[in-house]
């Protein structure tokens, strides 16, 4: 079901845990969609000096979190902000298609944590971690059936999986 890289990060996740007195904390997702990730940062000289994660989620969610921390560790904030969910999936050498838009939230959590760090520096007070409730589903240019979420051919007038007619342009 998962490739070896994903299974390796799932079985031996890197940088699990929390950071005492973190400089930034970001959280995405919620148990409703099955995944929730928290990223903790320690920043030194505008670089990620330490990064830890906690994740509630499936195998790919844990592997994504682990790979993200590896990608971000030691990066400048500017570089870290450029890491995308797609980069994480690519570093994992691919994720199952149905996991791409639900479990692949690591970069969002990282960006929230950096935002939290920058907000703190600017004097913004927050009671909990910076949160992003609704993640953008990374559907890019693909079309998906509005009824059963199966990928569609752009020219289809009906969904081959659930056989419902597709009246509108999709």
């Amino acid at each position, binding site marked *: 079901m998962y490739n070896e890289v994903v299974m390796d990060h799932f079985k031996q*996740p890197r940088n699990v845990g929390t950071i005492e007195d973190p400089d930034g904390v970001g*959280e995405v997702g919620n148990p*409703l969609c*099955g*995944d929730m990730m928290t990223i903790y940062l320690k920043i030194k000289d505008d670089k990620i000096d330490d990064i830890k994660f906690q994740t509630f989620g*499936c195998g790919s969610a844990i592997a994504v979190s682990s790979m993200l921390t590896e990608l971000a560790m030691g990066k400048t904030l500017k570089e870290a902000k450029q890491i995308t969910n797609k980069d994480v999936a690519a570093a994992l050498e691919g994720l199952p298609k*149905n996991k791409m838009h639900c479990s692949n939230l690591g970069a969002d959590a990282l960006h929230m944590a950096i935002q939290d760090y920058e907000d703190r520096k600017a004097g913004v007070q927050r009671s909990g971690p910076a949160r992003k409730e609704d993640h953008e589903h990374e559907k890019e240019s693909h079309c998906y059936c509005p009824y059963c979420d199966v990928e569609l051919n752009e020219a289809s007038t009906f969904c081959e999986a659930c056989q419902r007619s597709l009246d509108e342009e999709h």
Partner: protein
Amino acid sequence: MKLINLDHISAAPLLPEVKESMIDAINSDLHNPSSQHQAGEAAAERLDAAREAVRQLVGAKDTKEIVFVSGGTESVNHAIKGVAMANQGKGNHIVTTNIEHNAVIRSLKRLSGAGFKVTSLPVDETGRVNPEDVAKAITDKTILVSVMHANNETGTLQPIREIGEITREKNVLFHSDAVDSVGVVPVSVEEMGVDLLSFGANRYYGPHGIGGLYVRKGTRIFPLLEGGVQEHNKRGGTENLIGIIGMGKAAELAIRDMDTRAAHLSELKQYLLDNLPKHLDEYLINTNLEHSLPDLLNVSLKYIEGESVMLMLDGDGIAVSTKSACATGSLRASHVLMSLGLSHADAQGTVVLAWGIDNTKEEMDHFLASVSECVHTLRSMSPLYRNHNG
């Protein structure tokens, strides 16, 4: 390492006698049971013998009431769509419950799109439907009530006999999806008062790809598959005789060994229930322990997600299934667990344990040690566990 199969609900091993019967059937070069020459008649005899074993397994009066189909899914589709189509003149209303298998849910959804009205009843927090709710839901337009016998996720048994009394009194057809109970617990279509009963063969160590539909004599039902006059004109197509012979052998053995199997399975269930608290904390048992199968438990492990548990146990050579949204591909929490009133977070951490006659207490010990370690690891990385503990 030998796989510890605690996922018998997905696949149970074929019994050696079943394998032998099927290999013998293959080697016998059986002809078409519909053919009238001697070779055909010899095949028909094998078919009749299997049908007789299956008749006994479900307690039907007549072998003519047993229709061989390709499995539980076809059986359910046949019962629901066949009854709906044949009884349109009488009405267009069907009553069911919120916890049915997708074969029932999707068949009914298809019918809803074709003008049928469906009333789906809730279950209580123990997972059972109230027969009085069924009685109240029936109108003069109701043509069918469909309530499953044992739930495939929780193993909880429904009050079929009580519902059967109601449908008899109101003169409405009653179908039960008994795919997960037939061959595991005693089933009698006469005592249950059902007109249609769906079942497979793998639950009692027979092959996949074969099953049966019990159709009470006198029931109006159209075939799902039109073709020849096989199966007393209820299912076209030359019979899967090798599968049917395997199913017949499995039925014969299930009848013979039902009590000893049930004793072993119940003992393992009790062993799990007694020992889970020694290895785990903060979990929910979603199975109704008063009314359930002897070989299945549904457990929600709080603060963690089921697919991760499944993967970790798999790494330890233990197969379980999970009903978390991530694992099902639907990205929605199980409708059965939601119907029980579980929170999304708790539903996500659900594993279904389904053991079989081939499992031992030593294997359960291995599972308990492994699941305890895996829950500890996953909770240590879960933000929900952290939040819960302040």
